[in-house]
């Protein structure tokens, strides 16, 4: 195995007096898709959210142990959370486009880093008046990032004629791919996805799965999913969480073929969950 990009050691997470994660330790290899499975409340989403310190926004949360990303313990209190989140992107369960144009949605992550958006619309009253060919040829950093991200997210062909439209006018599946494009526009190393397909139809789900398989050559992907078939189809490694503990971690083949632990076998065979 290549050197891990993420190393988790004895991670504990408490919400007030409730223990959400207990003593989780494992390594995640770069440029792989890691699937995190488990029943509701098993701690898999909590784990995902600890990787980009999203849990900081909850008032009663306490975390222990270490998570090392790129040689740095990100749970250290001096960690620059803003910088961390630029390296560890996240896509949420429901598509959450901003009430802005398609273009401005993807440009947002760069804009907040202080890069000037050349196509910014004023109060969504002015429109983007540029042909997509012109945009593809542009050498403005934001233009380039938007075009690249939309292409990587397999959305470019569908939206290149309506980049100025409100993102809310896209379908659910397109909105979710837009959120992926928005996340990868700032070129993170790691992409976290929290049940990204749970509100989508099978066709859109398929589309996103293909997209993730294509993205793993550039990004390390962690995906929380309720859908065992999805984990089986796309994950290289799978971690099974149960009541706040990582019960088993192995290759998808090991977990779905013949897992070592009874609990894991029961879960993947559908005995509970």
């Amino acid at each position, binding site marked *: 195995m290549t050197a891990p990009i993420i190393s988790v050691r004895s991670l504990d997470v408490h919400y007030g007096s409730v223990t959400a994660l207990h003593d989780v330790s494992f390594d995640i290899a770069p440029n792989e898709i890691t699937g995190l499975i488990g029943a509701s409340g098993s701690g898999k989403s909590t784990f995902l959210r600890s990787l*980009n310190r*999203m849990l900081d*926004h909850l008032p009663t949360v306490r975390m222990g142990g270490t998570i090392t990303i790129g040689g740095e313990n990100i749970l250290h209190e001096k960690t620059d959370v*803003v*910088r961390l*989140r*630029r390296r560890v*992107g*996240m896509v*949420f369960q*429901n598509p*959450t486009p*901003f*009430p*802005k144009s398609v273009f401005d949605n993807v440009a*947002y*992550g760069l*804009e*907040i*880093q202080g890069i000037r958006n050349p196509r910014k619309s004023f*109060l*969504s009253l002015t429109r983007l008046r540029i042909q997509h060919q012109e945009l593809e040829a542009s050498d403005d950093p934001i233009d380039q990032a938007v075009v690249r991200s939309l292409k990587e997210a397999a959305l470019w062909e569908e939206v290149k004629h309506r980049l100025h*439209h*409100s993102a*809310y*006018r896209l379908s659910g599946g397109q909105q979710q791919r837009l*959120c992926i494009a*928005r*996340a990868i526009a*700032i070129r993170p190393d790691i992409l976290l996805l929290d049940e990204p397909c749970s509100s989508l139809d099978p066709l859109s789900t398929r589309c996103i799965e293909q997209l993730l398989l294509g993205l793993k050559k550039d990004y390390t992907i962690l995906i929380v999913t309720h859908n065992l078939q999805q984990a089986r189809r796309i994950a290289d490694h799978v971690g099974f969480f149960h009541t706040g503990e990582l019960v088993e971690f192995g290759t998808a083949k090991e977990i779905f073929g013949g897992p070592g632990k009874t609990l894991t076998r029961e879960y993947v065979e559908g005995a509970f969950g």
Partner: protein
Amino acid sequence: MEAVVTDHPQGEFRRRAADRAMHWILRIIASLTVVLLIGIFVFLLKSGLRTFSEVPILNFLFGTRWNPSSFHEPLWGILPLVTGTLFVSAGALLIAVPFGLSIAIYLSYIASRRTREILKPVIEMIAGIPSVVLGLIGLLYLAPLIAKTFGLSNGLNALNASILVAIATLPTIASLCEDALSGLSHRLSESSWALGATRWTTIRKVLVPAAAPGIGAAIMLGLGRAIGETMVVLMVAGNSLAFPRSFLEPVRPMTATIAIEIREVVVGDLHWNSLFAVGLVLFLITFAINSVTDLYLHRTIRS
């Protein structure tokens, strides 16, 4: 097993009749609001339009002098009054919008739950202050302060009225902005944070723009309230019919003019009618503001 309560046929008939009666009573009461609106409009129209048989409408709307009681040459131009209204309400919004929006942002994203639960009712209570009390504060405290600060002989002017009208509209604006902001999904904030945005960036670049339709509606409602405000402007705006040139000059908005002059005119004569015409213009301005707001809201919701 038999049903314990058997339905008596007469009982059912009675219930249905009561149901239907209630339905009609409520329907009639609800339609009364429409009748009321049309009635008020017709009432204004009836007296107001009579003005224009004697005063050309353009002279009325764009005349720069209002002097209806002049013995030699009465003048009916409402432009100074309209300008007075604009000065006071624009000034009020310039003050109330930044304050109201800041309060709303603080309440919805920064204040703790406890603070919010105390502060929000307090702000809404400002709406309960009778405007005559605001006027008194203006006369007693604000006017001397303004006079001293700007070296004027007295402090009854557009600025004074603007500040007090701003206080009157603040609860509307703050409370509605707060509703618009706290109604936004928490997911929007999370998505923005996840991209490396700070709380402040998120508020400025995602949340406030997302709440823009609601904030716009709040401002427009505040504007409607400001334009219609009468008591405060009557007391502190200075009551001068000269065409206002700055915020430090006394003005006499449309509402104050009607309130002052209606007591001194003969019922049914030209002056009486002209005051109704002023009321009609006032009504049309607020109506236009409401319609534009509605249109804008529908437009934004649709896209």
